């Protein structure tokens, strides 16, 4: 178990999650018949792998449409995690499914963020709503959803500015946006190479605004991705997508088996 603990920590699984996880796996290993053809060591690894797949979410989850259109999706997370790019990737997927989609640029603070999303909307083949830098993000989001609704959009995806979970005014802003939009989905976009702090960040975002799903980006790199287990374990929310590239086709559904193997190395 010592080696497994070290492997998980080196894979960036959060310290406290590793503790709980190894204890749960140990309890299962002790309480279970050692499986026929495997050595005790192999049996432990097998149980650890199964336990990890179980926690990660067992099966693949899909984003479903709301009963009344438009389905509103909010993208949230720390600075630079991949929200803007992921918003466009998801938009492109819905367009490919034959849906009408609108992307809303509610990041009115980062230089050229509105331009960035406008370009990506063009690439995704969907509608776009954005105003000018400095406008109130909640107003922009609200107007974007209203227009999407009148234009009969099936899905409206709202991109927001990156922010620290400890930035109270900006977290309040996100809370107000949620209350105004009543989104069907609030997706927490997290960088796949995030280390120990993934737990504190995700927990705070979930407590403050309530997340419905997780996206883990930049998994086309060689980071082990322990943040996946940490975030899932602490929020209980499903990981809905994995970001696998810089282009708009770089998005895949989340496969717990694959990520478990990757984390375990």
């Amino acid at each position, binding site marked *: 178990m010592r080696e497994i603990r070290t492997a998980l920590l080196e894979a960036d699984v959060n310290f406290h999650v590793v503790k709980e996880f190894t204890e749960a796996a140990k309890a299962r290993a002790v309480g279970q018949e050692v499986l026929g053809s495997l050595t005790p060591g192999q049996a432990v690894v097998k149980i650890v792998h199964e336990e990890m797949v179980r926690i990660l979410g067992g099966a693949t989850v899909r984003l479903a449409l709301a009963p009344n259109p438009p389905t509103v999706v909010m993208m949230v997370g720390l600075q630079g995690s991949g929200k803007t790019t992921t918003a466009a990737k998801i938009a492109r997927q819905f367009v490919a499914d034959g849906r009408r989609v609108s992307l809303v640029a509610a990041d009115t603070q980062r230089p050229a963020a509105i331009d960035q999303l406008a370009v990506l909307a063009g*690439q995704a083949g969907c509608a776009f709503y954005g105003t000018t830098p400095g406008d109130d993000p909640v107003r922009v989001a609200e107007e974007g959803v209203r227009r999407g609704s009148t234009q009969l959009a099936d899905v409206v995806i709202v991109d927001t500015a990156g922010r620290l979970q400890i930035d109270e005014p900006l977290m309040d802003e996100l809370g107000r946006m949620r209350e105004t939009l009543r989104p069907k989905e609030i997706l927490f976009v997290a960088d796949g190479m995030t280390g120990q702090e993934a737990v504190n960040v995700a927990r705070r975002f979930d407590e403050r605004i309530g997340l419905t799903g997780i996206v883990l980006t930049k998994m086309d790199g060689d980071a082990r991705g322990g943040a996946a287990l940490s975030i899932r374990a602490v929020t209980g929310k499903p990981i809905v997508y994995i970001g696998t590239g810089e282009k708009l086709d770089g998005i895949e559904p989340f496969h717990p088996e694959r990520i478990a193997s990757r984390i375990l190395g």
Partner: protein
Amino acid sequence: LLGEARVDESALEDLEDRLIQADVGVRTSAELVEIVRLGVARGEIENGESARRAMVRAVEGLVKGSSSAGAHIDAPLQGPPHVIVFAGVNGVGKTTTIAKVGARYRAQGRRVLLAAGDTFRAGAVDQLAVWAERIGADIVKQGAGADSASVAFDAVQAARARGADVLLVDTAGRLHTKTNLMEEIKKVVRVIGKALPGAPHEVLLVLDATTGQNGLVQAREFHSTIGLTGLVLTKLDGTAKGGIVIQIARDLGLPVRYVGTGEGLDDLEPFDAASYAEALFG
């Protein structure tokens, strides 16, 4: 570790756990704690406070690095122009850091030129252009899909022609696992050297403080591909401690030059090993 309490094994374990949670890594955390364990065994460390001070000194010693007297904002400029290339994986803060570093040089009255070397990402050139305007720097850019090395070459020529003191070269974010992209940045650095012998004078890897153990791999790969002269540790205004820089200092001898502490132009500080080490155990 409480001030006057004796340093027992459970206190040492707490210390090790704290380091691990700061992304210092299992191996390096164990080594740092071993320093204290030996100090206690030799009778040099008697209580929690002296253990804490020993840890702070050990970390400070590691991150201070052999070249702490080297290039930073107040060091003499090379060139002209003094050329700095900013490299790193996606989203870590390269472009924003360039704006901050540029602002500092502008405050010294220097002529600053920015090179829009990210020719791939949507809005990348526009983003840097906004910053150039805000800090009073010129910008060299080309059209969509331009060759990154060609922009870098043009920028060096333009810097010489316009008498710029400092040239800051932005590059696209890239994962070190992408061979073609690592080849591209290798070419950028090589081309800069052709345009101006001795350049680039600094090659900085920008690292996000929230990054886990992959940060060490990033540093290794970028260092072996383009030869780094230092690091910038960004987003330290968040709750992550960026402990990976301790491993990087230990394994690769690379010093942290600057830390990013926010999204504004003023949110940049020269790295201070002592305060970084103190903050780890604060």
